[in-house]
């Protein structure tokens, strides 16, 4: 069967790179005695594929991986994995998929980031309104194509400000992967451009990854 798991990575593990996170999962699978499938060839590896990369330095509430394995009860998978995972990393849900289901990397096209900003909510709200009112927002690309300006505006699906006492949290739902990949560091550049400096952002994380179909936002767990 193919299993899709949703997991959270706490703030203490924010510096793990994608490959390191994959190793954490692979080692946990072995410790937990999960009946995973192996690839063929000289260097057999566990048939696991990780969702979109969680950038080094940020933590995430809803991350995903797919795993090929012998049939197993989902609740049992959750129990066994969470027993062996390091504190701060946990599987939060899972479901089985048909073998033909679209790969994670090919289906996730939206991600939501949260920025806790140490500024008055009204100020933050004003900055966000200013961003939304733009027709084009050019930011130097941080991706492979350097020295190119990238228009982020079409990829900004939603920007909301949630007041938290004296400070505010900006929730940004943005386009990832194809056709427009907005990187986390480009988002930071964008915010800085509109007066929300890197220093005023006290914490940030990824709320979740989604499959956006038209106006509908689906969890990778509930898609067919």
């Amino acid at each position, binding site marked *: 069967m193919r299993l899709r798991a949703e997991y959270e990575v706490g*703030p*203490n*593990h*924010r*510096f*793990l*790179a994608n*490959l*390191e996170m994959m*190793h*954490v999962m*692979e*080692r*946990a*699978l*072995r*410790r937990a005695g999960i009946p995973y499938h*192996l690839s063929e060839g*000289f*260097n*057999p*590896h*566990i048939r696991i594929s990780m969702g979109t990369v969680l950038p*080094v*330095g940020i933590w995430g509430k809803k991350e995903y991986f797919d795993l090929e394995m012998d049939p197993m009860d989902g609740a049992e998978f959750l129990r066994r994995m969470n027993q*062996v995972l*390091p504190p*701060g990393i946990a599987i939060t849900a899972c479901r089985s998929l048909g073998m033909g289901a679209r790969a994670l990397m090919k289906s996730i096209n939206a991600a939501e980031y949260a920025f806790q900003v140490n500024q008055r909510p009204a100020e933050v709200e004003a900055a966000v309104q200013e961003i939304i009112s733009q027709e084009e927002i050019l930011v130097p690309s941080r991706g492979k194509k350097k020295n190119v300006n990238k228009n982020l505006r079409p990829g900004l699906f939603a920007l909301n400000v949630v007041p938290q006492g004296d400070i505010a949290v900006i929730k940004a739902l943005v386009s990832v992967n194809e056709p427009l990949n907005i990187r986390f560091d480009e988002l930071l550049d964008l915010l800085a451009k509109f007066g929300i400096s890197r220093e005023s952002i*006290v914490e940030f994380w990824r709320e979740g990854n989604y499959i956006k179909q038209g106006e509908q936002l689906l969890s990778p767990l509930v898609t067919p």
Partner: protein
Amino acid sequence: MKDKLFRDILPRVAKPIRYVGGELNVIKKDWDQCQVKMALAFPDVYEIGMAHIGSKILYGLVNEESPHLLERAFAPWPDMEQIMREEGVELYSLESFTPLRRFDVIGFSLQYELSITNVLNMLDLAGIPLLASQRGEEHPLIIGGGPVAFNPEPFADFFDALLIGEGEELLLEFLSCLYNNRALARKDRLTRAAAIEGVYVPSGYQVEYKADGSLAGMTPVSSAYPARVRKRLVSDLDTAYYPDKPIVPYMEIVHDRAVLEVMRGCQRACRFCHAGTVYRPVRERSVAVLKRQADTQLKNTGYDEISLASLSTLDYSGVSDLVKHLVKIYGDRGIGVSLPSLRVDAFSIDLANEVQKVRKTTLTLAPEAGTQRLRDVINKNVTEEDLFQAAEAAFSSGWNSIKLYFMIGLPTETEADLDGVLDLLARVKAIGQRHSRRAIEVRASLACFVPKAHTPFQWRAQNSIAELEAKRRYLTSRKMKNVKLSFHDSRTSMLEGVIARGDRKLGEVILTAWQMGCRFDGWSEYFDFDKWMEAFRKCDIDPEFYVYRQRDYLELFPWDFIDTGVYKDYLVQEDQMADAAIPTADCRQAGCLDCGICIDFGVSLDVKEGKVDATAG
């Protein structure tokens, strides 16, 4: 401390995961409930230090089996060092983010001569005076141990004590002694500790030199200090502590796998080998114990590979049984076995074949020298026939690349020996070509021979940088297709040689070099030979005195007071046999060679799985 690191410091450095701890199986003891608080400081980066087996053993041992506490610290990479200095962040432990200054003891693992500048740098980053003489009651005791501590004198100025030999029993005795005498002044605690066998307290000795610069004598300042310091060793590996739950790093480290220590020591008696003398005698672990350890290690770590570590794993009497067992039990789960070093013979290749059923590995053989004569000189008991058989077996079972280790600059080496290296490579390649239609690749790594203390070659002159460079040019002048040669840096080897057979006078040079900015000297991108030579000039010390001089058998050496259990007479005899190119047999087959270790230390050669394979020679 942790908040500041996570918020302001770590987002600005490369590989921040090096500095955060919190790995699986980390042990964090309650600070206030523990007797002695010790930091285990590894003078290299995290991904190197975390691979060290000795540190894994001591970490588990102190934390699990004693009332003391042991936390880890590593050398920060220069980018992190710079930010730490700018921001006033002191070196801290990874378990509790406690500044190293607050520990009772900081113990440095000394695995490599050139890591000493990192030791100084770490002390400085911890805000601790570098010289033992300048430290007071408020500072931790600075101790060291590991193979390099067998010639502790170049480091004498920096350490309050050095622990000589295997640490399992020694470290716990040392820590308990400190605890029991905690009411005493620093100096008196050290005097008490000096009574423990294996503990060397440099401040307890007066050193005098002759006019020619060699050692005149080394005298204890009082009867509290022994005239000779005897190494410590573990007599039975089956009952010795070994960790069941080693830390599993998040970042990829060198040797990123579970490790079994199948034996300690090596009886091959290669005349150049430091470890071969200081870790005598051979002590094996039983297959039954190793099977159990493999099981618990894999269960507790989730690694996909298990390595059988020792100085010469193929000589372990149970190697065949153990490998077959591991492959059978774990192979279908995708868990492989790795053999770090292969013996040069067909038996080794058979076993390597067994291993690669799960995972394809690189094949590495170490003939060390190019001709039979020179291999006899260094007592590397490998014949050309062995090597060709091994190559034959390897290529016929599907390998298409092979790696060979050699040394250049060995005693008595001539041009014929260098030609011998090239001829061997050509013939190994020809054997490969017969078995494969694809191009096969032969890689040779050529290290510069560095004479080491306590070995039969401790009297020998090291080849000069000019000689080694000439040899390198000679070897590279004959180009062969698909044969790649790589050389160790001759200048690094020279400095390594100076410290390996150095004395207390070098302390000043090391300090000066560090002050001039030397650190990470084992890393080619940071090694600055010219700076080191400048430091020697500033201190008016001639480095060539330590390396390029043929020493006299009667000369007193700075490391002679360290008792490794091997007689000096035996070393002399081995050195003389080298001149005559007469090999010495393996004492497991040929019987006792009277090197001294077993009689002197009341131990014995501990071969666990019956008679050793007689074809081994």
